[in-house]
């Protein structure tokens, strides 16, 4: 497959290939245009050269150079024996590299002293990392905890040793770090002390290890002086500054530069991206990128219909990177690429967004007139600053932002005043309504008062039939039926008050019951008119009780039988009085019309009427009876 190469469409194939003549592999800018193998060879050769150069330069250099030389020789001596070098001359390249190395060498000499102090400077943060992970560490148990930290310690001791050697390439450190992650993963899987952990815990522990180690060695590994990261940072920064005229329109990403909402979201995305530089652990930097990208997705929601695809997302990200111009962008990207667990970069959301960021940076680096769809000369004029477009982001931000804000605020005020007007109107309407309601209610109350005048009625009290009524004791003793025989007395007695008056008219003993019945029928008539007042004490008499009981019977079928069955009761209300009147000259005739009271007072003295038995029985059976009736 590799041998069947055809010319690439965009870039010449030879440009992509390794710079070593005759090498069939592709080159990589990271390795100065060599493939990995040739780069390594180049690097070894370079070390050798440096050793020689330093020796040669010794007479010309100051005393500090002497110590430097010793160091270099020491460092490079083992390399001599280790590697067999191919002789391929790349003089130009080597010179360039050498100059780079000598520029850095004074720093390298101080390295040893710095390492300790640098590591110490991170101690507090490392402690914070450890604090954060306390739950996890407790969960995995002290043995695993100790083992993990032992691994980390041995790892960074080794790494520090390598870092102290200024000849160590950053790629070696990176490879060592990645190997460490892999070994640790393997260890977690194989060692017995980790056997009880869940996969999640292992993942977390690996994260923790990475965070701990990388935070600890951040100063050594981030933008180390042996690399050209710093130079690249400056280059991209300059490049982005040159491109400050690029607007969202150029990027074709549909961001509306003038709306405040998008401003805010672009700002927050930029803030997240800038935050990347202050994070220390690779995964924290990655998290910043992820957050930045999520902000961009939110932003795109305002600008594009439907969900954001990569077609919209990448231009927006490029735009944000251009506007953010993050500090030490390249260093950060390289640091993450080198020291973040590679599996994290190859997959997952973080990996995807980080890849996008790399793409954005790469796009910015290689930006041409063609990629912005504009004529070459216009592009170059922009780049040289000959023309300044009127609608750039900056001008929108700086010059017009005040106006924008004012307009926005005016609009908001107008809206608010409209709302407050509406509120006032509604409040007034509500007040009117309340007044109207109040009036209406008063009116209705008056109407009701008129149509239903207030009448205070006596309190109703339930009648307790079983209660001992003191009045009963005050009553005259019950009459004996024998008295009835004294018939002739009836005519002589005038006064209705006299108790005997009632009984005298009865002509013969056979008719006693009949007479009582007659009285009762009248009584019942009287009672009916004052039915409501049954409960009042004045009427608490045997008669009323009996009458009640009669009424009650109609409502209670269970007890109906008895009172009705009593011989008197059947004849009580209807025919008997008529028969009586025919047969007997009733002494009662004139009296009831003159005084009604007499009847009731007479009635109290009746000792036993047929209904009474029913009444007493009723009362004992069901005390709430009278209450029902009232």
């Amino acid at each position: 497959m590799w041998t069947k190469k055809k010319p690439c469409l965009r870039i010449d194939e030879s440009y992509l290939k390794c710079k070593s003549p005759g090498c069939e592999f592709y080159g990589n800018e990271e390795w100065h245009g060599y493939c990995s193998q040739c780069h390594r060879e180049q690097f070894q050769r370079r070390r050798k050269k440096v050793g020689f150069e330093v020796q040669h330069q010794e007479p010309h250099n100051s005393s500090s150079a002497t110590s430097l030389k010793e160091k270099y020789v020491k460092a490079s001596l083992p390399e001599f024996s280790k590697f067999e070098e191919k002789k391929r001359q790349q003089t130009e390249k080597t010179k360039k590299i050498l100059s780079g190395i000598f520029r850095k060498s004074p720093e390298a000499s101080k390295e040893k002293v710095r390492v300790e102090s640098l590591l110490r400077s991170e101690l507090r943060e490392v402690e914070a990392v450890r604090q954060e992970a306390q739950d996890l560490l407790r969960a995995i148990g002290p043995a695993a905890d100790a083992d993990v930290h032992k691994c980390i310690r041995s790892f960074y001791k080794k790494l520090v040793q390598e870092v102290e050697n200024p000849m160590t390439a950053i790629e070696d450190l990176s490879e060592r770090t990645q190997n460490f992650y892999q070994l640790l993963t393997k260890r977690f899987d194989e060692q017995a002390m980790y056997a009880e952990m869940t996969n999640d815990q292992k993942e977390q522990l690996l994260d923790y290890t990475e965070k701990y180690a990388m935070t600890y060695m951040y100063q050594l590994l981030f933008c180390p002086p042996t690399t050209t990261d710093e130079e690249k940072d400056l280059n991209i920064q300059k490049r982005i500054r040159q491109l400050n005229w690029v607007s969202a329109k150029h990027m074709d990403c549909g961001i509306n530069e003038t709306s405040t909402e998008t401003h805010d979201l672009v700002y927050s995305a930029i803030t997240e991206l800038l935050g990347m530089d202050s994070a220390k652990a690779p995964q924290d930097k990655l998290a910043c990128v992820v957050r930045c990208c999520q902000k961009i997705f939110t932003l795109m929601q305002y600008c594009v219909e439907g969900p954001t695809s990569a077609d919209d997302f990448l231009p927006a990200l490029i735009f944000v990177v251009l506007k953010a111009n993050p500090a030490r962008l390249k260093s950060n990207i390289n640091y993450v690429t080198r020291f973040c667990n590679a599996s994290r970069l190859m997959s997952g959301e973080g990996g995807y967004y980080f890849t996008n960021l790399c793409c954005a940076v790469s796009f910015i680096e290689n930006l041409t007139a063609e990629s912005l769809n504009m004529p070459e000369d216009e592009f170059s004029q922009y780049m040289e600053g000959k023309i300044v477009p009127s609608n750039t982001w900056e001008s929108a931000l700086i010059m017009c932002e005040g106006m924008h804000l004012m307009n926005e605020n005016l609009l908001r005020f107008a809206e608010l005043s409209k709302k407050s007007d509406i509120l006032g109107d509604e409040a007034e309407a509500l007040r009117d309504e309340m007044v109207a309601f109040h009036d209406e209610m008063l009116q209705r109350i008056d109407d009701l008062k008129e149509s239903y005048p207030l009448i205070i009625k006596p309190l109703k009290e339930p009648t307790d039939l079983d209660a001992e009524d003191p009045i009963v004791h005050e009553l005259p003793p019950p009459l004996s039926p024998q008295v009835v025989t004294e018939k002739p007395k009836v005519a002589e007695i005038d006064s209705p008050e006299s108790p005997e008056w009632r009984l005298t008219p009865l002509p013969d003993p056979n008719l006693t019951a009949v007479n009582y019945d007659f009285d009762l029928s009248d009584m019942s008539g009287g009672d009916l008119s004052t039915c409501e007042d049954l409960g009042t004490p004045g009427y608490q008499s045997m008669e009323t009780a009996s009458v009640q009981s009669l009424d009650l019977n109609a409502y209670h079928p269970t007890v109906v039988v008895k009172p009705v069955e009593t011989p008197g009761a059947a004849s009580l209300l209807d025919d008997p009085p008529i028969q009586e009147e025919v047969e007997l000259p009733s002494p009662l005739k004139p009296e009831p019309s003159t005084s009604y009271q007499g009847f009731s007072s007479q009635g109290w003295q009746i000792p036993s009427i047929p209904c009474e038995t029913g009444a007493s029985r009723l009362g004992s059976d069901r005390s709430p009876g009278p209450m029902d009736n009232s």
Partner: protein
Amino acid sequence: MANRSGPQRPNGTAQAKICQFKLVLLGESAVGKSSLVLRFVKGQFHEFQESTIGAAFLTQTVCVDDTTVKFEIWDTAGQERYHSLAPMYYRGAQAAIVVYDVTNQDTFGRAKTWVKELQRQASPNIVIALAGNKADLANKRSVELEEAQAYAEENGLLFMETSAKTAKNVNEIFLAIAKKLPKSDQNAGNASGQGRRLVESESTAKPASACCSK
């Protein structure tokens, strides 16, 4: 690339095998790459997509035989100007879907260049599928089914005409890819390797799978 929490646990015999694969979507812009994925992942088409914010990175799981295949779908920007960035996306991908629009001959041409590029530059055992999207617009068709079919056979690609709108063949094409992906433990073992090393180790395993390399 099976994930680390995969099947090779010493004491996880009862565990179902889980393989995670990275799948890139390539194709000219506006051929419906993201619609295709949204249909596959969320079962939605344009009208119902309010709830979805981003369609650039999505994951979906499918079951093939006794294996659970987790797709991690990376969308790419289809515009011509971003073409040169594509290798960054398909680096380390185990599968790719090259999408074209059946109503647009140009997009088919672009798809062919993508396929060529993938075969030359991506991981050697990458599974490539060709999807002719918008098959519901048959009356506006300008790329014939036979033409694309012949091309796919010639290049050893999976091929289907799909429609994100009617959901035709959407799940099918992902399932076909899942079936074709190597799910051996050997492959899974290479998972956590670094990009470079991953390529190396995969090229050693190349003879074992002859899915798309010509």
